[in-house]
């Protein structure tokens, strides 16, 4: 049971509320070919993205990206995952004498975005942690020395999530696209991908129900052109050999995701 924090600047419900106990059977057993949705083991869910101001082209979900007056923005879909991001900057930084620019990230789950309990409006510890992770994963790609005294802010909101690690990977891809849209100077775009370990098998881009039954998850953020990894995250147990294998497969998948992002960005210029 959790207590809802009373915030005077919001309409508040009762002090305590819980999810009912769901009795319906779990669908986790109905995996086809080891996957929930007939993908192969190393297949990433289909990606849709959109940057910049709205045009006639529309997402199948009739969600269109992009904030007005932001320097850059992107809307990103990967399977059911849906993420929207706005980038502001380079703009005046908080430290007036910094020789390097700074990159800040504000990551939020929409209250209804997770399949488990509703998220509180108050920023949870995991959102703060993910914000920091995103900063660390993206910052190495940005030419911060080109922006002295300036800061670049990214605001990311998850509208729908499906797999924790996959959502973080999607957020990284979404920010990369938004940064490119904002015209921020970068060494390379960061592409990210996650995998889950089921038994002794690595499964790429796990959905929530797949992630629930996997014993270990690995997330890699990778700059394919520079051939550099910017972030590795592992949860759970695996042997060093297995991790090696995951890093190898993930970087390959990141290259594929990167190609999708690049193809989109190129076509958006025309």
């Amino acid at each position: 049971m959790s207590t809802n924090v009373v915030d005077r600047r919001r309409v508040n419900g009762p002090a305590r509320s819980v999810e009912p106990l769901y009795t319906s059977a779990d669908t986790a057993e109905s995996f086809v070919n080891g996957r929930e949705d007939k993908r192969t083991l190393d297949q990433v869910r289909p990606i849709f993205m959109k940057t910049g101001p709205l045009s006639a082209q529309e997402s199948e979900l009739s969600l269109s990206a992009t904030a007005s007056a932001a320097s850059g923005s992107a809307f990103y879909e990967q399977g059911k995952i849906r993420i929207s991001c706005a980038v502001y900057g380079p703009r005046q930084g908080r430290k007036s004498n910094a020789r390097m620019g700074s990159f800040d990230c504000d990551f939020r789950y929409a209250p209804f975005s997770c399949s488990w309990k509703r998220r509180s409006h108050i920023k949870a510890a995991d959102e703060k942690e993910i914000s920091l992770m995103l900063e660390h994963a993206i910052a190495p790609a940005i030419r911060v020395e080109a922006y002295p005294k300036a800061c670049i802010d990214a605001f990311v909101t998850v509208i729908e999530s499906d797999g924790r690690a996959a959502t973080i990977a999607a957020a990284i891809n979404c920010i990369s696209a938004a940064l490119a849209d904002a015209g921020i100077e970068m060494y390379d775009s960061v592409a990210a991908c996650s995998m889950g370990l089921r038994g002794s098998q690595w499964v790429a881009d796990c959905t929530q129900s797949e992630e629930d039954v996997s014993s270990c998850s690995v997330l890699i953020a990778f700059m394919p052109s520079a051939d550099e990894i910017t972030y590795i995250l592992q949860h759970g147990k695996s042997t060093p050999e297995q991790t090696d294998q995951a890093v190898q497969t993930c970087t390959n998948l990141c290259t594929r995701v990167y190609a999708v992002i690049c193809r989109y960005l190129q076509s958006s210029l025309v």
Partner: protein
Amino acid sequence: MSQGDVANTGQVVFAIEAFKRIHPVEFQRRFLSQETRHNGRGFSQFRATHVTKGTISTAQGSSTVRIGNTTVVCGIKAEVSEPDVKAPNEGYLVTNVDLSPMCSAHFRPGAPGETAQVSSEHLHRLFKGNVVDPESLCIEAGQAVWVLSADIVFVKYDGNVLDAAVIALTAALEDLQLPKAVFDSETGVVSADRTMGQGLTLRKRLFPATFSLIDGVYLVADADDAEEQLATATVLVVLDDNGHLVNIWKRGAGNISRETISRCVDDAGVRKATLTKELQDNTQKS
């Protein structure tokens, strides 16, 4: 021509973008005095509105609404709580509007600003009791009731918060499927079956229409962000299915006469017809 140029006549000639930035009021006035608007719409013309229901699989009820460039997602999560002792068989509907810097540069990160707070409160006043019967959210009197947390997240902001929020919430409530819940009096636990969804009967549906007074003279329907910045007064009219009025809310000083308000009500009736069509069966095929 990106900067001001002095033409032979001695007049300063600006590129249109520069003119818009430097003197937004005059920019709008040029259009309005010609009986048109900078976005090409007529004075009483609303933007194209698209409603899609059931867009979020992680919520019990959801909708996505686009009014021109304004895009909003509404998701309703259903949870269980003890009812208030004063109203043992009434559930809760909690409405909150989220306007973050993700949707527009007007909004600051952190706690909700005034626009978000006022919109949340206004939605609460419009929907509570009026649209959802609190007693239909009762699971076991005095023991357990549903709490519907409706969060309205703006993905892209281009004016007209309230219209978008009211339409999105109405559509999400129509989409809502509450699992069949049973209260166990021995353990005090509510168990629910996901496979047995049940829609909620709404008392009425709400159809909003906003009008803004620009420059003290021109009354325009469904103002976008640029027009909203210059509006001195706004009129919100909300109608229900029967064509009864639910809300007339005029804020800000400006000459909006009694006749003008009744004209707004007439226009809201026309808007209602369009919205009714749009709200009908736009459930996403998955």
